């Protein structure tokens, strides 16, 4: 009974590791974003899919970019900070203010993503999940409540259509 219940339970979150990473995410975010504590944060990622054709071998390659995504409900601003799965460092933040962006919406197909167009030239598609069990590719963090709150903020206050 115990064996089978454990077998079908599936993978479980290591909360100690998740909490340590959440703390590290906050440290990094506050390091590069002014008044970082005014923002709530979640982990998100972007996907860059490129096709290749090397003669008889062809297919597609996907590059994953990890992000610390912060949002401020008062100023209706989203901040994206590029980082790496082990959270050893981060890049410069990019600010997306609701009043300044071209459009924002939630995409359902081909992947569930939060899409922001700052202008006509480019866009940012943020993918976010409760927890992803692959430390080599994604930041190991459990964020069920944060994701629900971010989704609610994005859909009710940030989206433009």
């Amino acid at each position, binding site marked *: 009974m115990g064996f089978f219940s454990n077998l079908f339970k599936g993978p479980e979150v290591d909360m100690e590791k998740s909490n340590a990473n959440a703390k590290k995410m906050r440290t*990094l975010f506050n*390091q590069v974003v002014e008044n970082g504590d005014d923002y709530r944060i979640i982990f998100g990622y972007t996907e860059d899919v490129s096709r290749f054709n*090397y003669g008889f071998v062809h297919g597609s390659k996907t590059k994953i970019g990890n992000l610390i995504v912060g949002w401020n409900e008062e100023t209706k601003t989203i901040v994206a900070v590029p980082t790496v799965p082990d959270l050893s460092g981060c890049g410069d933040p990019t600010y997306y203010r609701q009043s300044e962006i071209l459009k924002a919406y939630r995409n359902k197909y081909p992947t569930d993503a939060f899409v922001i167009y700052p202008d006509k030239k480019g866009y940012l598609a943020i993918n976010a999940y409760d927890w992803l069990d692959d430390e080599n590719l994604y930041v190991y963090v459990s964020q069920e409540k944060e994701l629900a709150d971010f989704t609610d903020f994005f859909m009710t206050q940030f989206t433009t259509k």
Partner: protein
Amino acid sequence: MGQFVLLLLFMLAIVIFGNIWFYFVDGFLSKIKTPFLRAKTPQTWHPVREEKNEDQEKTDAGKS
């Protein structure tokens, strides 16, 4: 049975050769692209500043 094994081995050889071919071409192309990509200004990178825990801070204070 023997033919089936031969077919499997043949397919395995194709897969192995395909993988080697992919890494060969991919590596070659990335080497060609590197000089062009270097022209771009590198993105600023901020390494994480590790926060000292309370015990360590007390030890450091005791030393000074």
